[in-house]
């Protein structure tokens, strides 16, 4: 278990490194500069120590030497600061660019992922990969770059300087400092449980908030306000208890490691002082300046240790986020169009479904042995109870999904051997789920035909009975509508979608409950427009309202994935089967 995780982590690290490749020059420069910058910043205490050694006591101060050392310190500090700034900019650039690249890649992938994947994963989840995970990844990368490396360099550098100054005292520091690491680790492993509890209860609370607030009106309609609040308080109380433990115990790390560091500091001071006293007057005296430098080092040496445990958790988190992103990027794309895929043209509307079988889940059969022959200009209506596979047929016609067996031909060509784009351009599609983007009404209308003239737009909108309400909007056709249609009513959104489709004048038409939110009077007018438009063109209509399907040339009555009846409205009523049952029930008292 642990091994596979490590292996997966290593795989992710490799992928991260691959993303870094375009920036390897910047990364190398950054690492080099960091090393120099650390060396410079560590050199400062040495110089200060030397300056201090020139200031011994009354009358024993070599001011000229002090000043010359101070100049050198100034130069070192200035250079170090400049490098720090450059490193900061470089690291920013690298991590933000890498994340931008990864995001772009992920988004490109979204465009070629099969609908099967997209339908199975909630939008929120995918969005959170592209946004939140990428963001965490950027933070981690930046932190890793700026802290991990300088941290390591600082440890190595201070160690080197301390060994050079006095190996014996350096040994004290080296042996004792990891204690703080051990202490931090001890606390982390023992408080993990509290964090786990906290996040579990927090998730429970979030779900409750989501559920109750989303349905607040229902809660109030049934007078359940108090009951809801009591239930909330119960969870909230548990969260409070658990959060207190998590917050408190995790905050123990800092004081504990600081105590360890203080002990190290005291020991360095002690050893240093004793060595000072012992070596006074010898050939190689350990001076007060060296002691002050040593103390500064002891502090700097321990600091990365304190930070590293934090950085490592951050990095692990970042890697986990990166793994989720890469999972999306590495997802199997839809089968690409054949290299020699034909471009469908001159589509007249002959569609043939031959022995089609399809299911979303392998062991739950949905459509089997579906045969259907549609001639140019026919209106095909698909009827049946919810979940019987009506929308699935549309998924197959548009090749959002590929058939499992059998084939679908348009103008005698298997749709799997023509380009998706030309196939989809042959259909005008309006779905029950309206989709509009943030932008002006005009931008939305011309989505399928960017070069449409105002005249064409107005004509399409008039046919769709959308012109009237669009004109009443504050800026008419240039009114900006918000995300997902903003303040437009569901019916108005459907009218816009219909107008958008009408503008493209496709040879075939797919209407999936396209008028479900439009009142029946307006629908009647739109149906007339559809009729005019579809003269001589093939159309597929899914509808709940039987009034909209009565005039179809062929009605497919579906039940549990099978076509149970086909025929015209009158034929089917005469047959007195499932369709007649559905139809007649609307007159029942």
């Amino acid at each position, binding site marked *: 278990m642990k091994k596979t995780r490590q292996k997966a982590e290593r795989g992710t690290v490799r992928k991260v490194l691959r993303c870094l490749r375009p920036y390897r020059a910047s990364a190398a420069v950054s690492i080099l500069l960091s090393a120099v910058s650390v060396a410079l910043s560590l050199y400062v205490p040495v110089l200060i120590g030397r300056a201090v050694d020139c200031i011994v006591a009354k009358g024993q101060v070599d001011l000229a030497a002090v000043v010359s050392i101070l100049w050198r310190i100034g130069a070192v*500090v200035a250079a170090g600061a400049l490098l720090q700034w450059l490193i900061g900019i470089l690291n920013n650039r690298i991590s933000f660019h890498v994340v931008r690249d990864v995001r772009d890649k992920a988004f490109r992938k979204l465009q070629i992922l099969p609908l099967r994947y997209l339908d199975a994963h909630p939008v929120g989840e995918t969005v959170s990969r592209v946004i939140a995970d990428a963001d965490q990844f950027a933070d981690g990368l930046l932190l890793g770059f700026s802290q991990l490396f300088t941290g390591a360099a600082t440890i190595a550098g201070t160690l080197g300087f301390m060994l050079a100054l006095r190996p014996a005292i350096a040994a004290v520091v080296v042996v004792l400092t990891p204690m703080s690491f051990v202490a931090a680790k001890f606390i982390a492993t023992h408080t993990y449980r509290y964090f786990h509890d906290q996040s579990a209860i927090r998730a429970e609370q979030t779900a409750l908030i989501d559920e109750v607030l989303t349905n607040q009106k229902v809660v109030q309609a049934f007078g359940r306000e108090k009951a809801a609040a009591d239930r909330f308080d119960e969870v909230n109380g548990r969260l409070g208890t658990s959060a207190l433990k998590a917050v408190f115990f995790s905050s*123990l790390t800092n004081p504990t490691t600081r105590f360890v560091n203080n002990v190290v500091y005291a020991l360095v001071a002690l050893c240093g002082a004793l060595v000072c006293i012992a070596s006074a007057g010898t050939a190689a005296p350990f001076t007060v300046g060296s002691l002050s430098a040593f103390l500064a080092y002891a502090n700097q040496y321990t600091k990365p240790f304190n930070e590293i445990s934090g950085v490592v958790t951050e990095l692990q988190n970042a890697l986990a986020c990166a793994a989720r992103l890469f999972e999306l990027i590495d997802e199997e794309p839809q089968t690409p169009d054949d290299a020699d895929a034909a471009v469908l043209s001159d589509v007249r509307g002959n569609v043939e479904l031959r022995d089609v079988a399809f299911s979303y889940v392998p062991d739950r059969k949905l459509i089997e042995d579906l045969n259907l022959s549609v001639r140019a200009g026919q209106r095909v209506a698909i009827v049946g109870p919810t979940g019987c596979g009506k929308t699935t047929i549309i998924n197959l016609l548009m090749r959002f999904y590929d058939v499992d067996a059998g084939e679908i031909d348009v103008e005698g060509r298997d749709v799997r051997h023509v380009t998706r784009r030309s196939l989809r351009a042959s259909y005008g599609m309006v779905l029950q789920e309206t989709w509009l983007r943030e932008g002006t009404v005009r931008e939305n209308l011309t989505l399928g035909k960017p070069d449409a003239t105002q005249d064409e737009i107005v004509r399409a909108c008039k046919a769709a009975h959308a012109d009237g309400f669009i004109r009443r909007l504050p800026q008419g056709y240039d009114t900006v509508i918000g995300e997902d249609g903003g303040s437009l009513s569901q019916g108005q959104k459907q009218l816009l979608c219909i107008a958008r489709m009408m503008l493209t004048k496709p040879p075939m038409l797919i209407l999936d409950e396209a008028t479900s939110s439009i009142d029946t009077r307006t629908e009647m007018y739109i149906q007339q427009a559809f009729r005019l438009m579809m003269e001589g063109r093939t159309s597929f209509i899914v509808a709940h309202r039987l009034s909209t399907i009565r005039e179809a040339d062929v009605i497919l009555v579906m039940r549990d994935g099978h076509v149970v009846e086909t025929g015209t409205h009158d034929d089917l009523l005469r047959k007195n089967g499932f369709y007649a049952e559905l139809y007649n029930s609307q007159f029942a008292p």
Partner: protein
Amino acid sequence: MRKLFVYLKEYRKESVLGPLFKLLEATLELIVPLVVAAIIDRGVGGGDKGYAVRMCLVLVALGFVGMLFSVTAQFFAAKAAVGFVTKLRSALFRHIQGFSYRTLDDAGVSTLITRMTSDMNQVQTGVNLTLRLLLRSPFVVFGAMIMAFTVDVRAALWFAVVIPILAAVVFAVMLTCIPLYRKVQSLLDRVLGGTRETLGGVRVLRAFGKEDEEIGSFAQKNDALTAMQKYVGRISALLNPVTYVILNLAVLGLIYTGGVRVQAGLLTQGAVVALYNYMSQILVELIKLANLILTVTKSVASGKRIRSVLDLPEAEGAVQALPAGDSAYRVEFRDAGLRYNDTGDPALQGVSLCVRAGETVGVIGGTGSGKTTLVNLIPRFYEATQGQVFVDGKDVRAYDPAALRARIGVVPQKAVLFAGTIRDNLLWGCPDASDEALLAAVRTAQAGDVLEAKGGLDGQIEAFGRNLSGGQRQRLTVARALVRRPDILILDDSASALDFATDAALRRALRELDYRPTVFIVSQRTSSIRFADSIVTLDEGRVAGVGTHDALLETCSVYREIYDSQFRKEARA
């Protein structure tokens, strides 16, 4: 902010003790350089080994006591922060429970959810850090300065010079960056919005072959975000090097002055080291402070957002002083109307309607004609902005809302259920109903098969009723409303997901209920309401006609058109 801090009151002791112990710890830290100076001057300078050992033990003791102080401070801070937010969360949740429909519409559900969750967490972190650190950093900075003055006034002047400069630099960078961070956030929101939009419209976009254009427009947004991030990064990257330079310049000055003063015999070597150590402490604290300010700014913004929700008014209870008027009917609308906002057209106007007990009323009309608005006035979900609505002769505003709603069974348009068993959900209608009563309601609602499929009354329902189909949910919501044996039953387009046969069976069962409720059926289908005692036909917020099916066919052109659109040939036949 005062409105929020009320909830901190209970933790007054903790909020004072937390920072206090933190300050005690910081004080100990400030003593350390003095001890080191003593070691250098008396221990090393005087060659007194015993003194050096004793002083080092003092250092260890200082560290240990400091740790105890610090842990105590963390405990009080955590207790206050967590307790405060727990209280605040509960208060906000209860506050939201009291909102009117109108307030809920205005505030928006997703906003309320973020306030309850991520904003609360942000506030908790902010309060915790504030109690622990916000006082500590300035205290150490000024403490270090004061200690420096006790060591040597002349040399310490460097502190007095450098601290204001550092403060100015830190604040300048922060103040420049905070609005820029907000910009980054809004650019990130655009990238997020773009992704969400593309995913939501994936079928339409692919149908129109827009994949490449989507990639282009995403890359544009993504680049804008990256450019902004880099810009902010460049500015914030200045903070550390600049403070580093300023501080070290002060160190240089300090050592020079120290050198001059030692030469004159006014200062010891150890004192110079101590002064240098104080300066280093300031640098460390400044970096901490900068990070802290960022976090605190974020929490203050979150706190403000929470407060804005707390400031929204709760719904009014029973209104005492009302225009006189009574009514002999179960439900009466008297010239009633509603405007959702001050600027828009009224959603409903001039509705007058009398309904006797036990009658069934159909409400029909086009999209946006005001059907739901009409029935929402009865349980006072919204208050009429024009005219009056009466239930059993009393203006609905004169009732206690809870008492009024207890008599009304509502089946809302959107069929939602809650996580729990089917029984839990049905008991919403009436908390002490027996299983027999529940089953009877289920039968009337034609939901017997749902119960069978889900394992009876103990069948589990997921949040929002996700594990049920639309039709199954609708029938259970009907059953839930029936459990309370309501005097008035409102079905707001509650059969839209039912096939015609089930819809008809449901209506038949409702007619046979022994307690004969007054039923309001809102529908788009004429078939659902054609047998009602009276039918209200609405057109753009006005009543176009009231009467029976046959009467309306004769007199009401809107009704006739709706009917014809659904039953063209048959109507003529």
